């Protein structure tokens, strides 16, 4: 039954393309929370989004920018989960098998995110992307901009849509393979499954890497169409990887705390390694962010430094300083000792911290570009209530869907040939 995947409706497919398989799972691996556990976040998220609709009427531009930040937040978590799975399969690592299913549930987020992205790209293009304004391209008109006009071959709406469809098509296909092959393996042992997963990961990794980079240029970099940076795709990836380990830690901790599940499956040893990854990607993010900033600061070429100038003036200086302190220095110091990574409550607090910082980072990247094309050319730093309602609203729906999927399938890939190795994992 499980492999047949009777798709009751498109809506169900968007959230989970497989029929439930949890009945075959061991007690410890079964999500035992209330069946409606997913309803709470989804309901809350929907309520917040409806509230945000009011904001759309009042401040459309703020609404779209905030929505883009919240949406990208969820997108990067799905992308980060995809990378996690690629590396997991390609390196044949065994220790993270116990958390692999959580990453698989996160990776199957692309169809839902595509739907949630419709309001953004159907109605928000004009507000979000300055390059969509027609007057930029008419020579002789007051608004003519030769630089943007020179990029027209890339920055035009039909091609932009085509690229988005391509990215989402690739990500959906890859995550569909990784998700369904692994979940089906729980109920119908197919000895080829590990090889299939490896094959998909091998070609999926370069494809996802290229699409991620170009998606970052399209979604975030083109908010400021004059500006460019070759490292931007890596920066985007660093944020995704930074966030996904935090979600894995948090999900594991909540499952263990809430239902007492996965006891003896996910141990301090696994948390320790996840914590090391969190630490590693804090440093990696800082390395990439610093390289980008330092090289532009040092060169001081006007068309490049303007992007950072907008992020150091008009109240954004505080944001930039906080980004340095709270996104790098604090996690670096806190996660450096061994014990903080092995005590679950401490690590969970850091995971929440990471997610807030990841959102803050995206906020910092996107929001100052809101002034692009306006008379003054800048917006003031600070926060708008729409920033939070859209972010938490979208995250509520996104994580609600993850909980729904968790409730339908075993929480660990219980037929994995190396699961035992993973359960016995120790940091030597």
């Amino acid at each position, binding site marked *: 039954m499980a492999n047949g995947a009777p798709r009751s409706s498109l809506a169900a497919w968007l959230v989970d393309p497989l029929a439930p398989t949890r009945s075959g799972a061991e007690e410890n691996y079964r999500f035992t929370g209330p069946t409606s556990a997913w309803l709470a976040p989804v309901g809350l998220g929907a309520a917040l989004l409806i509230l945000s609709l009011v904001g759309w009427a009042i401040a459309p531009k703020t609404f779209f920018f905030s929505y883009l930040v919240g949406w990208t937040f969820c997108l990067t978590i799905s992308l980060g989960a995809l990378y996690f799975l690629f590396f997991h399969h390609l390196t044949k690592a065994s220790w993270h098998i116990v958390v692999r299913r959580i990453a698989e549930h996160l990776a199957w987020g692309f169809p839902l995110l595509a739907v949630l992205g419709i309001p953004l790209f159907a109605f928000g293009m004009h507000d979000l992307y300055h390059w969509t304004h027609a007057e930029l391209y008419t020579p002789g008109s007051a608004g003519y901009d030769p*630089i*943007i006009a*020179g*990029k027209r071959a*890339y920055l035009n709406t039909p091609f932009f849509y085509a690229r988005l469809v391509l990215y989402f098509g690739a990500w959906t296909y890859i995550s569909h393979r990784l998700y369904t092959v692994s979940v089906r393996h729980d109920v119908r042992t197919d000895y080829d499954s590990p090889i299939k997963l490896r094959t998909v990961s*091998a070609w999926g990794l*370069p494809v996802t*890497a*290229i699409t991620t*980079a170009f998606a970052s*240029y399209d979604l975030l970099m083109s908010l400021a169409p*004059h500006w*460019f*940076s*070759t*490292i*931007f*795709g*890596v920066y985007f990836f660093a944020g995704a990887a930074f966030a996904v380990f935090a979600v894995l830690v948090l999900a594991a901790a909540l499952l263990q705390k809430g239902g007492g599940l996965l006891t003896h499956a996910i141990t301090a040893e696994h948390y320790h390694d996840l914590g090391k990854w969190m630490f590693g990607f804090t*440093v990696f993010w800082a*390395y*990439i962010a610093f*390289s*980008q900033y*330092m*090289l*532009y600061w*040092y*060169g*001081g*070429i006007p*068309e490049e430094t303007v992007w950072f100038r907008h992020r150091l003036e008009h109240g954004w200086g505080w944001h930039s300083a906080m980004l340095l302190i709270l996104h790098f220095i604090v996690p670096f110091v806190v996660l450096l000792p061994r014990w903080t990574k092995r005590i679950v409550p401490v690590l969970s607090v850091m995971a929440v911290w990471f997610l807030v910082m990841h959102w803050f980072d995206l906020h910092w990247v996107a929001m100052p570009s809101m002034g692009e094309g306006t008379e003054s050319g800048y917006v003031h730093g600070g926060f708008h209530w729409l920033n939070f309602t859209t972010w938490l609203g979208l995250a509520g729906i996104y994580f609600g869907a993850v909980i729904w999927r968790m409730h339908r399938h075993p929480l660990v890939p219980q037929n994995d040939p190396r699961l035992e190795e993973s359960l016995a994992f120790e940091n*030597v």
Partner: protein
Amino acid sequence: MVARHTEKRPPFLWYVAFGISSLLAGVLVLLLAYKVWNGPGVWGNNQPVGWGWPIVNFVWWVGIGHAGTLISAILFLFRQRWRTSINRSAEAMTLFAVICALIWPTFHVGRVWVVYWMMPIPNQMEMWPQWKSPLMWDVFAVSSYFIVSLIFWYVGLVPDLATIRDRASGWRKKILGFFSLGWTGANRHWRNYEKAYLLLAALATPLVLSVHSVVSFDFAISILPGWHTTIFPPYFVAGAIFSGFAMVLTLLVIARKVYEIEDLITIDHLEKMNIIILLTGTIVGFAYITEFFMAWYSGVEYEQYAFLNRATGPYWWAYWIMMSCNLISPQLFWFKKLRRSIPVMFVLSIVVNIGMWFERFVITVTSLHRDFLPSSWGYFDATWVDVWMFIGSIGLFLTLFLIFLRFVPMVALAEGKGVTPAADPHFYHEEGDGHAAEVPYVQPAEEQHEGPHHVDEDDGDGEKE
């Protein structure tokens, strides 16, 4: 098996190789003297292209050194056990490559006798170095890299030197006894040793990433089109790992054959290295595409021209050698058959290093020879001094590497023993009766070498010292 190669007379091939490479190293020394006496004008550098082969060679050698630290430190942090049989020679390679690299920043200056001015030493002039120059950062990055790599390598060597000390006699025992620092392999030693090794690995990892990033800053902080780009730090690091692994592969393919250690450095090890070459090669290729796309997307005409000039200008051949060697050739490793074929990987590993040399050449020279002002466009031609100094540096590298092969265990003995199946505490348990009955019996490491004069049958020709 490993210790023995330091004890017996080396194969005939060793003498031939050592003769040739030390001859080339001699050429390097002579040319260095020639250059210092006559000045940097003996090189082909000219006014637009002030940085020619010396910088290209410097970046190339530093890059090659990076694989050693990656294998010994990063793979150690990831607990990749396959690193054990290759880490020793890879680390030695790092040290020798960094020595070869350090020649260039020292000697490409016009007045080599005042290079100590780059050190922040209190002096009667009250003059200090300029901390905003990445060339200053280079001094500190590369020299601390050398020191940390040396310590890391030496710490790893101590237990192994003790092993060959115990097998030696006479004056050889005395020397080894001095260098093995009285290591007895006590439990307390091991506990501290493991902790120190882990800490060094954790320190060496950010160091290795920062060193090549700093090297990349030499270019990226400038405002030159083709140099000023933000992706350089991670892209240079990926390229360094790429070329370093290729060099490890070139050397190990020969060494494992000559020294008959195919059972220690197996085809699986080589395959894993090839996969890393494929991965980093693809990252490098991706960076090429990113740079090209961004040059167009930027709308900056200088940037656009710089990349057009690379592909179609007077140095088009260098650009296309780079592209085909680095972007296309590693893609052959997608095929398992090619990945596991020794001739293919040997040829490819050399191709990769040629390609990576040209990458640095393309970045350095093509960006310099044509930039903002057409009136200062030039062309760079290497002179015989450029060429022979580079060949001489390869000679120096091989000389040092051959000395290492002769006197030092090229595979980490203590670690290698730690990862044999018999060292796993669960090895005997699984059979239920406390004996490894159905598993092929592997002689426990301690029993293999019982005394200093233990000689195996096949070792008859080995001369004991």
